[in-house]
């Protein structure tokens, strides 16, 4: 992979000395196959001699076999990876490539450009310092160029290069270049890209890639590679206040307690005053510990272990920060969310949010709007589908330390994880904390749940009956309540149909509305449990995730899930309310079991098989189990 420098052959030690001081730049290339993106990357690898002879031989053979350059070397073949993609002729994921010049090492995130791969581009953009947006000189600024630019701006990439490619096919016309430049400038200003560098080039011919080409004497700017070599990368983060999310508490023995983490912004020195956020406890840095000895200073981008002068209780998920300028703490935010999963984002459904090293439960409100990534129009939305981007409020179940994303990507960027499938389903960027979360404080009350329940001579519980429509939930719940009442208990029955007449009459039967339906009922049940009552909830509640949410709202052992198990065929045969018939004829949409899914409980506390047990017996069983636990 000979770097051409003769230094390697003549003085390897001098070469190594120079090479070890190289900096690192990560950049993203955006564009589709047609723009010559793969060709550009192949060309960069080729021109920086990162291709070995055996690879080159394979490349020449491939170029003859499947290339698109009439037997000449097809650089695009160098970077198209997985076998399936080769056949389809498109790149479908984020691929990372590496090359270096005499000044810098580069990591290239190569992402596909089509709209259906927005999530891949966002992923690639999240770690990039710079973006190279490709434009086909023959076509000018297209819809996709706008989409790419919007995403680049959304992810906060500071350095934008507009690579106006295939200039050889427009005879290196300055007029063409100037027109594209003017078009782009007008558009870029709308999305907050104020600075960018436009370079005319031909990736295929190698013009203006490593050196300024004579093909365009009118162009006075730099070639691509020298430009990328000179971009500043770390200046801004280092100038910001110190932040280090605690990853791991390092305790080899009783005498040493260190906080290990990656410094996401600022600098830190022994003696600096730091605060642990959210607790707000303050101390001073005693040592910056590394295997290579203690450091006098550490900067953004380093992984270190800090010890403090005082024993303060910080743990994984907390942020150590400059005392003079700590991050904010909040539990409700406005954010932009990019949805990355085939299953849509449902407002109200609890997801796991990871930000820095912190994991908390979070739910997303109905989007304020979603963004048409091609036109930048704001559109009304009830939910977000795969690859959609929306501005939404977020509500967390615990306050966290954060910075707005524009100031610090590590403390403002988050992912959302599905609680059941464990997939990473979304990514987002925090804008700001909502005022209400900072101003509404939890009112601590003297009379608590246990006291209220004691006064009623019972232990508060939620008995959550789930099952298909017509499975017999309400009948059984009603019988259970009568038995409890007769035994002198204080109860309340929340019934699906009844609640939909009042509290939830604004909700329909879409997946999103079902989630909100359950969220409200769970919150009401929680208030009633707090009042010391035994609450019977009779709701279809088809999704595991929401039943899990309801369970998590209550205290340990307070939630008793009862699965009223009636097979679909049997419920449909009974069809007490005539609803199945309507659903089958299409008169009723989104009916659970017919055209909307029911996810049966995996580990209910009580399982009632209604084909083997009468409603009376079921009620008897449930009441008995409750009394056992209650007395």
């Amino acid at each position, binding site marked *: 992979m000979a770097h051409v420098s003769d230094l390697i052959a003549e003085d390897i030690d001098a070469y190594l000395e120079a090479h070890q001081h190289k900096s690192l730049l990560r950049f993203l290339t955006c564009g589709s196959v047609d723009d010559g993106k793969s060709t550009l990357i192949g060309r960069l690898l080729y021109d920086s001699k990162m291709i070995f002879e055996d690879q080159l031989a394979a490349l020449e053979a491939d170029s003859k076999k499947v290339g698109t350059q009439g037997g000449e070397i097809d650089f695009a073949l160098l970077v198209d990876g997985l076998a399936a993609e080769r056949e389809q002729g498109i790149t479908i994921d984020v691929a990372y490539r590496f090359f270096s010049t005499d000044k810098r090492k580069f990591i290239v995130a190569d992402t596909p450009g089509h709209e259906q791969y927005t999530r891949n581009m966002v992923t690639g953009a999240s770690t990039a310092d710079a973006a190279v947006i490709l434009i086909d000189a023959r076509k000018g600024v297209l819809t996709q160029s706008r989409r790419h630019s919007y995403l680049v701006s959304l992810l906060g990439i500071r350095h934008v290069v507009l690579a106006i490619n295939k200039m050889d096919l427009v005879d290196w016309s300055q007029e063409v270049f100037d027109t594209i430049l003017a078009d782009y400038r007008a558009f870029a200003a709308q999305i907050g890209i104020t600075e960018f560098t436009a370079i005319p080039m031909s990736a295929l011919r190698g013009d203006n890639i490593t050196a300024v080409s004579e093909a365009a004497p009118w162009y006075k700017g730099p070639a691509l590679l020298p430009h990328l070599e000179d971009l500043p990368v770390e200046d801004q983060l280092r100038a910001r206040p110190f932040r280090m999310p605690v990853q791991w508490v390092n305790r080899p023995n009783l005498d040493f307690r260190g906080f*290990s983490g990656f410094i996401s912004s600022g600098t830190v020195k022994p003696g600096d005053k730091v605060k642990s956020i959210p607790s707000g406890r303050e101390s001073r840095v005693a040592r910056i510990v590394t295997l290579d000895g203690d450091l006098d200073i550490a900067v953004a981008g380093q*992984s270190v272990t800090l010890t403090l002068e005082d024993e303060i209780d910080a743990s994984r998920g907390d942020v150590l920060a400059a005392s003079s300028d700590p991050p904010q703490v909040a539990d409700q935010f406005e954010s932009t969310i990019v949805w990355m999963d085939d299953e849509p984002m449902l407002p109200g459904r609890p997801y796991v949010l990871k930000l820095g090293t912190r994991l908390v439960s979070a739910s997303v409100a109905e989007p304020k709007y979603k963004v048409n990534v091609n036109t930048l129009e704001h559109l009304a939305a009830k939910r977000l589908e795969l690859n959609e981007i929306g501005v939404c409020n977020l509500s967390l179940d615990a306050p966290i330390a954060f910075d707005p994303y524009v100031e610090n990507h590590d403390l403002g960027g988050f992912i959302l994880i599905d609680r059941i499938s464990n997939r990473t389903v979304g990514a987002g960027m925090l804008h700001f904390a909502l005022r209400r979360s900072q101003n509404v404080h939890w009112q601590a009350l003297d009379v608590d749940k246990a006291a209220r329940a004691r006064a009623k001579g019972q232990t508060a519980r939620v008995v959550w009956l789930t099952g298909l429509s017509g499975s017999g939930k309400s009948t059984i719940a009603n019988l259970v309540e009568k038995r409890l009442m007769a035994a002198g208990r204080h109860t309340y029955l929340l019934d699906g149909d009844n609640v939909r007449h009042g509290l939830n009459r604004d909700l329909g039967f879409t997946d999103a509305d079902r989630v909100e339906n359950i969220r409200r009922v769970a919150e009401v049940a929680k208030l009633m449990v707090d009042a010391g009552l035994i609450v019977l909830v009779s709701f279809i509640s088809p999704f595991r995730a929401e039943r899990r949410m309801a369970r998590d709202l209550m205290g340990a052992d307070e939630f008793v899930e009862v699965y009223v198990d009636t097979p679909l065929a049997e419920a449909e045969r009974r069809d007490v309310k005539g609803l199945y018939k309507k659903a089958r004829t299409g008169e009723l949409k989104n009916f659970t079991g017919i055209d909307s899914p029911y996810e049966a409980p995996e580990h209910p506390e009580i399982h009632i098989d209604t084909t083997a047990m009468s409603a009376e017996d079921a009620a008897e069983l449930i009441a008995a189990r409750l009394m056992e636990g209650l007395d």
Partner: protein
Amino acid sequence: MSANRAAALPPAPDLTHLQRLEAESIQIFREVVAECEKPVMLYSVGKDSAVMLRLAQKAFYPSKIPFPLMHVDTTWKFQDMYAMRERMQKEADFDLIVYQNPEAVERKINPFDHGSALHTDIWKTEGLKQALDKYGFDAAFGGGRRDEEKSRAKERILSFRSAQHRWDPKIQRPELWRLYNTRKAPGENFRAFPISNWTELDIWQYIHLENVPIVPLYFSKVRPVVERDGALIMVDDERMKLEPGEVPMQKSVRFRTLGCYPLTGAVESTASTLPEIIQEMLLTTTSERQGRKIDHDQAASMEKKKQEGYF
């Protein structure tokens, strides 16, 4: 000199690329350890493993490495590799597990009688799956790098495997910023690749700067070899079966990658210091994996092996 300390004086210059890579790798090590129940590091004794070991020490210092290292052994590694393993265990003080597939032991699987494909499959691929199941590890650190091979360019830092250890492109998760999603169902596990973004040159340069001990086979020396199918195979012990008329030659050779000695080709070389090795590598014109016999079968073969559970 330490990569950490090099840029530590204000006004500090940009971190060097090695400092940034090191910090990133350490962050990945810590993240997996903080969030997983039972991690393990796969230790092959090669140069990438040597760098991984140093990074793991750095990530948790002054604590001891908080997970065991596991060598999935084939009994056919170079003798120098076994010696290095023992030495590093003493010097770096880690818990070591050596796993040998009992079926392979019993059937005396070897590259001469069974061929390289079967040998590799039973000792390494099967052995690794068995070992992960036996100990119930839920995360395994590996030294894979994205620059090694085309299909690796898209590998995630955390690569998820089903309970049957299969890699499926559809269950891989997007990785944004420095956020890794380590959540998984019981039985599922993942491989973690902390040095994904390092190149071969980075590895060598780090070994040079940090004085990381590596197996002497990487340095040139006169060694007994025979030439087979265009490759120079070292006669490392008495189990090497010589073809009729084959006589070992004494040649100055070294190895660019290490594996089972009958399957690992040497290159003729006089490079006996790290700078000379790096020089040779930079001036050489064939890629690193050419010395490794298992790669050559068919295009995209690594991808196929990955799906089957091989690293």
